[in-house]
């Protein structure tokens, strides 16, 4: 039932405002929590990190511990950390950090700190997710002020896990920088794939099948598969009903299963791409009549690049 959406802005601006509008138009699909993944200007050096801490009162000491762990990697904070002023018990923080000698080890170490989870890490990717609908989350975290090339969002109707920021989409493909997912559906071979990936050393922070899809694709791409090839392979290897959007540094990919029961529609216009579970959400950005692309067939895949595709050509 969840709603997912995506946006590509070829001018690299206002992508935060647009993705909030797309999410707000699908509030009815899941107002329990809302999450955003925004790809801002990519760094050539260092990473941007978004994190979650369960207890706001432990923020100072946790950030000190994070800085110590950075120093142990020969790295450092670039600028002062920032965090939300929502007053909730949990807090979402943002860091900019220098290069890491062992990225995976640093992530493992940070997430061993009490109540701490890294929501995203990348040259460009920033994940913000919290309880409440799109407007509430935007008010708490200023998503609509973010600039960038592409973005994803998810409106979650909680069914099988907590109403909590860390149970919400998007999920980062830990430990792969800049890869994340939003997903509408469910996998039926989740546990078998999770055991296989865990045997290969991958660690999951949730019991959500969406997190697994993100890691699964990242493993394929790390082994040399193109985004399109990985999406296509997932349709054979992952069992269930699903339509998901995978965010990468270069753009957005989409795959859906053979039953194709989870809807997706898109608009491909000169200024960019808008993608949403429901067409009416697309009309929040394009109020005039536009051509709607319906991805309603079985085993469909698509990729949208941040700089645009040649018209009529698949990436």
């Amino acid at each position, binding site marked *: 039932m969840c709603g997912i959406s995506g946006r590509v802005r070829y001018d690299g601006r206002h992508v935060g405002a647009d993705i909030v509008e797309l999410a707000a138009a699908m509030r009815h699909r899941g107002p329990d929590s809302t999450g955003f993944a925004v790809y801002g200007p990519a760094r050539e050096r260092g990473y941007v990190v978004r994190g979650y801490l369960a207890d706001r009162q432990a923020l100072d000491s946790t950030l000190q511990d994070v800085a110590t762990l950075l120093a142990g990697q020969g790295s450092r904070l670039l600028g002062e950390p920032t965090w939300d002023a929502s007053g909730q018990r949990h807090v979402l923080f943002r860091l900019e950090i220098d290069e890491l000698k062992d990225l995976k080890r640093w992530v493992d170490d940070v997430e061993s700190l009490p109540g701490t989870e890294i929501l995203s890490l990348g040259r460009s990717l920033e994940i913000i997710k919290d309880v409440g609908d799109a407007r509430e989350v935007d008010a708490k975290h200023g998503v609509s002020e973010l600039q960038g090339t592409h973005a994803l969002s998810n409106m979650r109707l909680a069914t099988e896990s907590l109403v909590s920021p860390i149970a919400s989409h998007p999920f980062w493909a830990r430990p792969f920088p800049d890869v994340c997912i939003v997903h509408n559906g469910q996998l039926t071979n989740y546990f078998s794939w999770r055991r296989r990936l865990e045997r290969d050393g991958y660690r999951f922070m949730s019991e959500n099948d969406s997190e697994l899809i993100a890691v699964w694709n990242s493993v394929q791409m790390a082994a040399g598969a193109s985004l399109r090839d990985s999406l296509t392979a997932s349709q054979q290897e992952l069992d269930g009903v699903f339509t998901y959007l995978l965010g990468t540094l270069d753009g957005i990919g989409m795959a859906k299963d053979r039953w194709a029961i989870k*809807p997706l529609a898109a608009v491909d216009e000169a200024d960019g791409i808008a993608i949403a579970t*429901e*067409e*009416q959400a697309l009309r929040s950005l394009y*109020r005039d009549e536009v051509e709607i692309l319906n991805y309603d067939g079985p085993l469909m895949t698509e990729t949208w690049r941040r700089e645009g595709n040649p018209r009529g050509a698949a990436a």
Partner: protein
Amino acid sequence: MSALQQAPAAPTTQIKSGDRPLREVNREIREAVAAGQHVEVTEPLSRHNLAVGLTGEGKVTFRGSVGYYCGGLTAGGVIEIDGNSGWGTGEGLSAGHITVNGNAGMSVGAAMRGGTIHVRGNAGPRCGVAQKDGNIVVGGDIGYSTGFMSHGGRIICLGDSKGSVGDSLWQGSVWVAGDIEQLGIDAVAVEPPADEVVEVEELLASLGYAPAERNWKKVVAGKKLWYFEARDAKQWLMI
């Protein structure tokens, strides 16, 4: 005389949908159609559930695309969509006429029991799923699993059919003038009887399609699944 022919020609009332409360917009549409008026709705903005539950002999024209379930559970009147329509257009229709001048999404006419739905463009997957009666006419192509588990009525496609057409049919039929990519489970394509061809061509003529020599394939139930037994499961690729 069909509902389409009876409907008042020129719009007498105009309603702006835009961001107004849907309940309010639908109440105005219902009242106008029940009173036999022709109402024109601007800025439908692909919103869901527009013009549901209509009765009477009036008409509503949408100037733009509509979202899910437009005309659902309707029992009379005429709906014209000057654009595309989303999933479940005319779901549960029991009487009346719906025209989509563009393309329609998944499950057009799902579980409809009467009336006519005419899509001038293409219709998405599962068109006429669980249909009980009435006619669905598609000027373009139909998506996969069209007619899935249909119990009655006709689906008429002037273009091509995607895969699994007529899957698990009961007593409905899917007529395809173009190519059939693949028949569904327990579906068979037969040459239609001449008297039924006449009926279909008369219906098409009433919708403005010129007479032509069409290569009709009528897809109906093979009836083997009607009496399914577990020992035959392998035959149906279910295990």
